[in-house]
């Protein structure tokens, strides 16, 4: 059972990383325009370069 000493904190640390990532994405406004984000991914305006539009 000694394995728990480092397995459990590791699991918690991974969970906390996920939480931190979510809070960061919330703060940076990634959920402000949910419908728009779904559509923007389809446009290729950002491809750029001489070949792109």
């Amino acid at each position, binding site marked *: 059972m000694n394995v728990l000493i480092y397995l459990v904190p590791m699991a*918690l640390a991974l969970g906390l990383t996920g939480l931190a990532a979510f809070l960061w994405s*919330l703060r940076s406004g990634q959920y*402000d325009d949910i419908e728009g984000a779904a559509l923007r991914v389809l*446009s290729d305006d950002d491809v750029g370069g001489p070949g792109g539009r």
Partner: protein
Amino acid sequence: MAETLDLSMFVQHREGTAHLDLAVEGVACANCIGKIEGGLKRLPGVVAARLNFTNRRLAVEWREDMLAAVDVIAALEDIGYRAYPFQPERAETQEAQHMRWLVKCLAVAGFAAMNIMLLSVSVWSGSDMGQETRDFFHWLSALIALPAAAYAGQPFFRSAWAAIRARALNMDVPISLGVITALGMSVVETASHAQHAYFDSATMLLFFLLCGRALDHAMRRKTRAVAGNLAALKAEFAHRFDGFELVRVPAAALRAGDRLLVRPGDRVPADGVVLNGSSEIDDSLVTGETARRAVAAGALVHAGAVNFSGTLTMRVTAAGSGTLIDEVERLLEKAVTAKSRHVRLADRAARLYAPVVHATAALTVVGWLVAGASVHDAIVTAIAVLIITCPCALALAVQAVQVVASGALFRAGVILNSGDAIERLSEIDAVVFDKTGTLTLPEPRVDNAATLDPELLQRAARLALSSRHPLAAAVAREARERVPFAAATEEPGQGVRAMIDGTEARLGSPAFCGLATADPAGPGTSTIVFTHAGRSAVLLVRQTLRPDAAETAAALRALGLDLMILSGDRPDAVAPVAAALGIADWRGGLTPAEKIAAIDALKAQGRRVLMVGDGLNDAPALAAAHVSLSPISAADLTQAHADAVFLGERLGPVREAVTVARRARRLMRENLWLAVLYNAVAVPVAIAGFATPLIAAAAMSGSSVLVTLNALRARGGAA
């Protein structure tokens, strides 16, 4: 006359860049994003342009020395989108912040609930687990649960504290108490190496409840964004004299003393006095009167009236100068203060529930002590009772239905202004309608369109597209193709003419078209003549009923509601409408005070009245009624006092609102009973001392899921 547009009131300035928020019309597809943003970024000086597709709003920033706000709007119009300057309301930004906070709390609670459950499941299933390992897991749970609950529980703790300080009870009081006692007892139990800890139940409870809150809030924000956009689309512009120059300004920027020009076809943008010019104005949005009123210098005009024939110059007057609006405001204030506050179903349940639960817990302590248990055991059992009765299902019971029902109403074209409108709508037993603009369409229509030669009518309608006159607008609405004829000329106050296929066509007053006046139609009806190539048509323009008014009236009666019309229009204009809808109970020629009196009389009989109205004169009656609805075309002040606004030309949303609200009410009650039933089963188990953490967790999530699933039935199509 070149006229500049002044949008300075909407533009925000920071360090050399200007910022403008716009509500954009016609954004429908993925391409629009690239078109709008790309098109704007090509303008010299634009720093940033970002379209929010979810709420159809555009934020533009540009260098002030290179561009003006008007250029941005003009550029958008060139690409094919109409944009309206928009001032984000304070309430809306506050709600956005609150939403973000709720989601943060939700994320923290979710993280904590998942990880603690991971540990708890190991404890529950690990029968061969040693005591040290169990204690380690419990301490770990405490380490996660205590800070998480302290953060994620804030929405409940704050609201509960506010309620207690106001010496009231709401649902958050038993929730907070349950969470805090559960956590406190678990810490004590863990310290004494006991077997049971309730960290998982406490965090899971917070997680479920926060889900409900966040969804409720998201729904409210969505409707508010749509309502805000509609308000921006509707906002009126005024032509103001700055010296001798004419400037177009938003009506919201007008001040008392401003001199304005009101052209034919324009709405009067503010209350004021006519300085010169003479015209006929249509007061139907103000008083409900459909016959037009002649005005000349010195006459009072009200915001919302439509100028028909002549150009007027007017001066804006301040409130408090004895105008109609002052009387309306005074009545409004009285009606709002006289209104008894509606106690929401959930709060009523909480008032019954909290004392019963807390008394049960106290009795449990006493009972176990009398039965000879130790003080520790008695208290632990009592706390288990508090935890298991913590009103998770009860709190979700009403909220979940509320979310689903407001979504259903939103899809039916009804936008809720107030949170408890659904509950109040479900209680009504009488509906009072205003006539003008509510039962009838807000703008006049060609009433005899069906009897006219279709080909002639289409030509008349296309010719009408070239005129700004309000009556021409009614004719133009019949046009199937919105293609105006080339080289049409308008004779102000008379009509329009154009050459069609080599012969002259005229649309306008009978005299203008060389026709001896056809038999004079009654007041409120205008006769327009169209002549072309020797053929002529007489068009009768008047207020017509909404297309489904009769059907809706019948459906409302079938729901067991009594219908009534209270109109500010002449009685002889109300009578035919009442007859067409089969409403026997009607009154005409009422002042705003008389409308309130009529509603108060109904209230005195114990009736709960839904008032549907749009005019400025209806605003006090709307505030006095139990619940109120107004069409989107209503006067601004009136709309602000309505509990909900409905979109479109049809009256059907009124019926829809009542049926959805009634269904929602039934489901709320059902859910409350489900929650009570759950408690009836769970409480004896807890009192007997069998409520292990596993049972508590299962019962709590089971009942929450059950009421949420039941709430989803509020979506359903048929009632």
